């Protein structure tokens, strides 16, 4: 399976996500409501969970309706809680909404079950994205994008300066509601697929970079889309090459890319280039120093607590050791079994037959083996048969079967009683052995077949 086959759909999904989230992210930064996506995603999840309380399975139309209804409520909450003369930052209310809806979701789940569902929302899994997911996302995001395009002036004005927008006669509350509603629809769809973490990064990271470079919306959009596409592509590619989970790999690479871009912007923008480079170099030296200190502390702690790590290793290898101990014990048991059997019938069977017999996994295999050997080489088969008859590990049923075979070949039972163990059957075994010694051994050639 090649990279295209596995990663094509996730890759396109990421591009679709970048397209809408970069745009929305710019609004989010302008409005200073950074964590609104977390809150809305959580509210949508709460909706699904409450639906579950009524017996509606997640991933059905009913569940979707529930999560949409809750998103609706969330949008209303955020539209209403934007106070005119901010005494409390809205971000506080957003954080509170997140915490409360998360807690309520846990309370609801306590009444039903489905904790797995809550976890899915956080992590998501990019690799399971199918083409129908991509198509659905594209259609919904295009619709939302269309609405935003037609209402762009109003939305932009409110995002830039809601006081001014209010002065110009806009119903800020109403438009905020529309904004958060469309936003919530996008978020609840994308978190289902990509997980809260990745969606948050898609929303904020390209916008941060765009903001630090320019103030013009169009340029910001282009920068955001460009970097989003490049970073996502490289991140996904790295996750393939280095074999890392895709979502976290993309997120981490976004972090690295932002740090690098920040450094470059700092160096380019600086008025005093020399001073900037000096600061930059100092920064790197400090980072290396801190890293070295951490590393040496880490190795020191590790080496001084070998006992602890040993214990951990022991726990880790417990399973493997258990297994090897079992095989050891099995080896021992097999050895003693071999000893017993060779004491009992060693004088009339060839050396090696007993080991061969013990190598067979279970009684069924042994019976089968004896049967085929009896057909191919009666002497060999009889040798195995007598081993089986002397083996107390063979259950009654199997010994009965062996006696039947013995009778079929020799015409006699030699007084063997399958209901008794070796102690009672020893004379019978002796008789069979005597009979066996009377049969000439087949040549090596046939014996080996």
């Amino acid at each position, binding site marked *: 399976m090649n990279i295209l086959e596995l990663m094509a759909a996730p890759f396109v999904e990421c591009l679709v996500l970048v397209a809408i989230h970069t745009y929305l992210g710019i609004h989010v930064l302008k409005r200073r409501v950074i964590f609104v996506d977390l809150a809305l995603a959580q509210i949508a999840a709460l909706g699904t969970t409450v639906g579950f309380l009524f017996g509606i399975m*997640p991933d059905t139309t009913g569940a979707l309706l529930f999560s949409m209804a809750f998103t609706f409520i969330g949008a209303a909450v955020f539209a209403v809680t934007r106070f005119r003369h901010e005494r409390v930052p809205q971000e506080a209310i957003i954080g509170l909404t997140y915490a409360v809806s998360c807690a309520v979701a846990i309370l609801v789940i306590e009444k039903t079950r489905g904790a797995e569902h809550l976890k899915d929302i956080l992590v998501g899994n990019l*690799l399971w994205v199918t083409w129908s997911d991509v198509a659905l996302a594209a259609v919904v995001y295009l619709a939302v994008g269309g609405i935003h395009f037609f209402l762009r002036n109003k939305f932009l004005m409110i995002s830039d300066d809601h006081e001014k927008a209010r002065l110009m006669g806009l119903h800020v509350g109403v438009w905020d509601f529309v904004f958060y509603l469309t936003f919530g629809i996008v978020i609840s769809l994308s978190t289902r697929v990509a997980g809260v973490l990745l969606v948050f990064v898609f929303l904020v990271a390209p916008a941060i970079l765009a903001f630090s470079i320019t103030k013009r919306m169009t340029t910001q959009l282009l920068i955001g889309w460009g970097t989003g596409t490049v970073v996502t592509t490289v991140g996904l590619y790295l996750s393939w090459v280095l074999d890392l989970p895709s*979502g976290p790999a993309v997120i981490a690479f976004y972090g690295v890319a932002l740090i690098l871009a920040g450094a470059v912007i700092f160096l380019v923008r600086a008025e005093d280039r020399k001073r900037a480079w000096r600061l930059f170099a100092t920064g790197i030296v400090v980072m290396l120093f801190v890293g070295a200190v951490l590393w040496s502390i880490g190795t020191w702690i590790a080496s001084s607590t070998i006992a602890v790590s040993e214990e951990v290793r022991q726990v880790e290898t417990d399973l493997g050791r258990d297994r090897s101990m079992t095989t050891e014990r099995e080896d021992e048991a097999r050895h003693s079994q071999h000893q017993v059997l060779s004491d009992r019938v060693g004088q009339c069977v060839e050396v090696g037959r007993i080991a061969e017999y013990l190598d067979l996994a279970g009684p069924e295999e042994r019976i089968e083996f004896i049967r085929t050997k009896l057909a191919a080489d009666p002497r060999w088969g009889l040798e195995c048969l007598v081993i089986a008859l002397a083996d107390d590990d063979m259950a009654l049923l199997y010994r009965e079967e062996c006696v039947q075979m013995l009778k079929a070949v020799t015409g006699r039972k030699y007084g063997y009683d399958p209901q008794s163990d070796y102690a009672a059957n020893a004379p019978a075994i002796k008789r069979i052995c005597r009979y066996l010694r009377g049969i000439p051994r087949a040549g090596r050639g046939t014996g080996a077949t």
Partner: protein
Amino acid sequence: MKAAESLRGLKIVAYHKNISYFAELFDIEIVDYLEPKPGIPPTPGHISAVIDKMRSQHIHILWAENYFDIGQVRKVSDRVGARPVIVALAPGGQPEMRTFFDMFDIWIRELRNAAQETDRPGPSSH
């Protein structure tokens, strides 16, 4: 029990490592797990290896427990080209599963249905 006999040697892929004992008892071979570390998304390399295995060994059954999002499991099995077998992991986990006996009956029934539907190649002979 007789029904379970026919599962001998059946090869499946499971979502999590949940049914090792059951699989061992009935000689069902779990070839691989989609999410070997529960909760941590698998890597692309792992997924492509599993899909390759499923293709080359003609494995068409994906075992998943019903506490996973069913839509999610269907997506996964679409992706890897398998028929999902979705069952509860413990009695009480699905309506007709009241006792442990029910549980095993249901597991075996579902696996047999899946095996027949996907027209598995005969049990692998050792």
